[in-house]
Every structure is written in C-alpha cells, then in structure tokens.
C-alpha cells in the first residue's frame, strides 16, 4: 500500500512533500518573539527525517514536532543558533542540514557553479573575440583555383 501511494505521488507529481496541515502548532510558540524568530530560522534549515524533502518548520510529522520543541528548548537554555544546529547534527548526522556544509568534498558542490561559470564565460569570451575579426577569405582549393584560372583565362 505504501508503495502504491508513493508511486502515485511520484507519478504525477512534479510535486512535493506529501504531508499537510499545520506545521508549527500554536502551543509550541515561544512567548519571546526574538527567540521564536530564531527558532523559525533554525527550523527552516533542518530537515524532517521521516519526510520527503521537507524542513521541520513545514512538516506535520511527530518527529518534526519533537525537533522543533528541542530547538526551542536549547534556545531557551541560552544556546546560540550555531550551537543549537551543532547539537541537532550531533544527534542525527549531517543529513538533517538542508543547507549543506562546505566541509570535505562539499566544497565541490558549492564551487561547481562558479567554476562552471568561469569556464563557460572564458570559452564564451574567446569565442566572441574570435568572431570579432574580419574574416579572411578562405584560401581557394586547388580545384577552385583551376576553375578560376579557367574563367579568367577564358575571358582574356
């Protein structure tokens, strides 16, 4: 049954996470708006582990709710944003980070776009420069030269 549901969702969907309804519940919200804002910021960058590509901020899953509460707990305890994220990553691994780090081979992920852009721009500039010259008439082939001579000789 799950497989069938998943297939359905995959099929049509150029779409999206398959859960619904309220994500952040009213009872979770911290009374301090500054802390609450920080909590929202953090939870938008953390992945719900049991969902498809959803942040815990959007997800309706129980686990996401637990994580949201955990984030708020740490914030109330006085952790900085980075400390909270580090705390969650320690428990659940790098997989929870929606924003991949730049450590290890991940530099390749981040650098891929800029590197490709530089290469493409370089090739583009060389190409455009190359087009910017007045074309030299291509040298005639032996056959064409012979034909030309024939015409010229014929006329004179």
């Amino acid at each position: 049954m799950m497989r069938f549901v998943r297939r359905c969702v995959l099929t049509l969907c150029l779409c999206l996470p398959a859960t619904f309804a309220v994500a952040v519940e009213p009872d979770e919200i911290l009374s301090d708006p500054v802390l609450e804002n920080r909590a929202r910021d953090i939870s938008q960058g953390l992945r719900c582990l049991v969902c498809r590509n959803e942040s815990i901020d959007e997800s309706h899953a129980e686990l996401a709710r637990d994580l949201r509460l955990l984030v708020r707990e740490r914030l109330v305890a006085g952790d900085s944003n980075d400390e909270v994220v580090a705390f969650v990553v320690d428990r659940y691994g790098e997989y929870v980070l929606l924003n991949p780090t730049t450590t290890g081979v991940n530099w390749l992920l981040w650098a891929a776009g800029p590197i490709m852009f530089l290469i493409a721009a370089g090739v583009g500039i060389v190409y455009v420069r190359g087009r910017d010259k007045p074309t030299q008439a291509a040298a005639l082939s032996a056959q064409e030269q012979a034909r030309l001579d024939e015409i010229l000789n014929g006329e004179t």
Partner: protein
Amino acid sequence: MITEFGHFALILAFMVAVVQMVVPMIGAYKRWDGWMAVAEPAAQGQFLFTFFAFGTLMWAFATSDFSVELVVLNSHSAKPMLYKLAGTWGNHEGSMLLWVLIVTLFGAVASFGGNGLPPTLKARVLSVQAAIAVAFFIFILFTSNPFVRVAVPPFDGQDLNPLLQDPGLAFHPPFLYLGYVGLSMAFSFAVAALIEGRVDAAWGRWVRPWTLAAWVFLTIGIGLGSWWAYYELGWGGFWFWDPVENASLMPWLLAAALLHCAIVVEKREVLKSWTVLLAILAFGFSLIGTFIVRSGLLTSVHAFANDPERGIVILVILSLFTGGALMLFALRAQALEAKGVFGAVSRESALVANNILLAVGCFVVFVGTVWPVVAEMLFTRKLSVGPPFFEAAFTPFMVLLGLLLPIGSIIPWKRGKVRRSLWSLRYAAALAVALAGLAWAMQSGQSLLGPVGLLLGAWIVFGAIVDVSLRIGSWTRLSRLWRLPRADWGKAVAHAGFGVTVFAIAGLLAWQKEDIRVARLNEPFQVGPYHLLLEHVSQEPGPNYSSTVAQIAVTRDGQLITKLHPEKRIYPVAQMPTTEAAIDFRFTRDLYVVLGDAQDGGGWAIRTYIKPFANWIWGGCLLMAFGGLLSLSDRRFRVAAPGRKTGKTGAPPPVERSAV
C-alpha cells in the same frame, strides 16, 4: 474487450513505429523517395493507434472497469468524473502511455507540416522521432503494461491518492509532458541535422517553433504545479527545490537557452554546433527528469530498489539516446561551420551571455539535485541539499541574467555600442531605482530582498517597454504598434513576464506575514490590518470524503471583506487527510487561512498568512507563456519557411558539403 482492443492497438503502434524508424532512414540514405515517403503515413497511423489505446484506457477509468488492474489500483466508483478521467495519467503506467502518446502526436503534427523541409531531413526527423517512440513502446509493453487484467475483479477500487484529486493536478502532468516531449522534436531535428551534416538558417527556423511550443507548455505545466502547491499544501509555499521539481526546471532553463540561440542560428548562422548540443541536452534533461520521477532514485534510494527494472530501462533509454546523440555530435560537429561575423558588443554576444547564464543555472540545479546520491555512493556521506543551497547558488546567475536582459534585448545585431543602448534605457533604469527606493523607504528596516527584487523586476519590465518603443521609433506613431511583428510583441511580453515573476517571488518572500494561534469561536483576532472572526466550525460530507469546514469572517476598518471557508478533509478509502486552505485572492495580496486541529482547551489552531503579490508569480508565468504563443503565431512561422537553398546555388560552403 475494449481493453484488449486498446492493448492490440498499442502493439500495432509499436510495429508501425519500428517501420517508421527503419524504412525512412534507409530511404534518406539511399535517396529512395518511396521509402522516405513511408514516414508520413506511418507517423499519422502510429498516432491514431496510440490515441485509440489511450482512449480505451480512459474509457476503462471512466466506466470504472475494475477488471483492469490499473483501474483497481487508482480509481474508485465514488470519485468525481473529472478525477476518474485524470486518473488515467495519475499513475505510472498511464502517465507513460500519455508520454508516448505525445511523442506520436508531435510526430504526426510534424508529418503534416514541414512541407518546406527537404525530404531527406524530414524523413530523418520522423525516423528519429519514431526511434524515441519505439524505446518507450518497449518500456510500456514489457515493463509497465497498463492493460493488465485481474483474475478476480474486486467490487471497488482503491482510489486515487487524494492529493492528486485536484483540478490543478489534473492538468499539470499533460502540460508538463507536452513540454518535456515537445523537446523531443528539437532533439530529432538536431540528430537529423547531424546525420545530414548541415545546419543553416532554415533549420533554425524549423526548430524554433517546436522549442517555443515545448517551452510554453513547460512554463504552463510548471506554473500549474507551483500554483497547486501554493493552495493545496497548506502553508503557501510555491517552490521547494524538490528533485522532481528540479527535474522540470532543468529542461525549462535549457529550452529557454535553446530558443534564444536558435534565433542566432536563424538570423546570423552562427552558434550552430552549440545549438545542436543544446537541443540534445534539453531533451536529455527531459529524459533525466522522467528517470528521476519514475525511478524515485533521488527521493529515496529504497524507492528505486523497489522497482529497479523500470528505473534501469529508463536509464538505458537515457544513455542510449543522449549518449548516442552526443557521440554523433562529437563526430559531426566540426562540419557545422559558422558563417557570421559579429562584434564583441552585439546582440549575438548578449545571446551568448544569456545561454551561458541559463546553462550554468541548469548545471547548478543538476549538481545540487544529484549531489546527495553522489556523496552517498562515492564518499559515504549521507547529506541533504535543500532550498538554502539552491537559493544561494542558483539565484546569482538569474540576477545577472535579469540585469543583462534589457540591455541585451535592445543591443543591435552584429555590432553595437553599450553606451548607446544604456542611454536608451535611462528612463527604465531611473524608474526602477525610484520604485525600489520608494519600497525601501516604506518598508523601514526589513531585509533588502524586497527592494532589490523590485529593482530587478521593474528594470526588466520597463526594459521590455523600451524595447517595444525602440521598435516603433516614436510614440507619436502609435499605429505602428499594430504593425509590429508578433514575434517582437512576444519577446517583450515574455521578458516582462519574467520580470513580473522575479519581482513577485522576491516581494512574497520579503513581505509576507504569518500568524499562528488558537482561535476561539466568536473571539476576533487581528493579522496585519485585518480582523478575523471564527464564526463556526461544522462537519460536512463530500462526494468521496468528509470535511471539517470553518467559517471565518474577515473585516478591515469595520468593513466585511469576505467570509473564508478553510477545510480539513478525510478521504476514507485512502485513509488520508488533506487541508484545503481558504484564500481571498486580491490583486496586490492574498489572504490565506488554514484550519488546524481542534485544541484540547477549546478553540482551533488557525494559521493566517498575508501573501503580497502572490498571484503575480503565476501572472508572470502566464505572461511568459502568452509571449511565447504570440511569437509562435508570428507570420514567419505560419507561412511556410522558404525551402533550403540547394547546394547548386552555392549557399552551403564546400566544408559542409564534403561532410555529407
């Protein structure tokens, strides 16, 4: 019985496709007119057979024929008729049948049109198109047959996923597929041109309408999907950078690049080999998109393992076509000599920049999409690449594109002057800066995203207006407006649409407001300038679901604006809840209300959003699509393109001829 007829028709279509793949290709090689002429009736027959097969499947869904396995798995007798019909493609087998139906549709359309095409090119195009169809017929008939019967038909079906029971989603896949598969025509033209060894202005003119049509369909399809997400998912997100979404964005970006560089081929006969490469890649990414969605590889490695056979078959098709075409390209590309000369500052260069930015943007999306799989397989790191990455890595290229767009679109062909073009745009720039400054002053201390988005969007929109005014020459001669070619209008409208979407996305993200609270009956609460009052909550039955409906009165300054009815539904057959947000659509903002769960201490969780300029996102998409249609209706495309110059008049240089 009808189902068996459909099955049989599908097999016949497969046979016809095999004939169409082989015979015209040999005919074109040997210059046998009779063999080449096979392509046209074959393409039309293939379409008719496939159409009939698809029709019988739809009939099975419409009549709820539960002796067909696919209908049992994906339908239910109590489902509204629209979703019974849409259920035909709301599943793997049916959607693949739709895919191949569209392949044959495009082949049939190409066989009717294209009278100006050289017969060998046309035969080869139809042959390549048939080859694509053959691959997918094999895929359908041997791994995903939609016509399989069940031995003991059940009384009722298992219902379609409730998420998919939505008008937006009923039309989203057909449009998307029309776009994906439309690119197959560009691919067929590219491969046929490589086999012929010749790409010229006439070729560019033939490829462009197909690409344009595919791009228009993709734009509409993506827009529909995003709009559906916006109103259905319950918190007003419109783009999630999900692998399956990226799968549709990548061909869209490449199709946009392709239709721009096909202009260069048509007008100036340069960038030929790049255009051919793009046509191959654009369809390659369509196939990759199909692979991603079908195999589920990127959403979960385990989903892929559940159904490895199908995923692998698509992977084989993908590597066969893309790899084969790229190999052909490597062998033949040098035959495609460029002819035109242009200055470093010129429309040609601007279009090169456009292509670089779009292609690099596509590359970034691609790398981000496959990186989790690569990292897991090669470096044993299990990680996620989510929206923050794409926003940071993809956006700069689009911003650069937006900055260059107005300049590039008015700079003259061959040789231009940056200063002169910038001077023409001085009012557009001044207006855009003024608007952004105003927005910045009004929002007082929020992020710069809103004003910067407005600056960019307004710059593009006003740039498009300047573009039109330059074409007319002087605003005192307005009658010229009507005589402007539709392609010019299309260009301006599509560019303006892009600007509108850019602005709307930035504005929505920067200025939206959110309110989450427990609302009690008849206790008003305030969100922004609005007062909301939860009047009552009731249970109501639906055709195939039961619903909890709230009524919320919205007032502003004591004036009743509207009554909203957010719902929560339960679909008993699929055992799934969905939320139906209530949205008050207005020109400058949406008021978006979602009903949550009943709370223990009484009252209901209610989330309210004010979403400024939300509709403008899809308004911009519509403008882009409309611009594409305008351009498509241009006289140049309606009137048969002039026949290709033959070798005898000396048009193709010796290099090209020797390559044939």
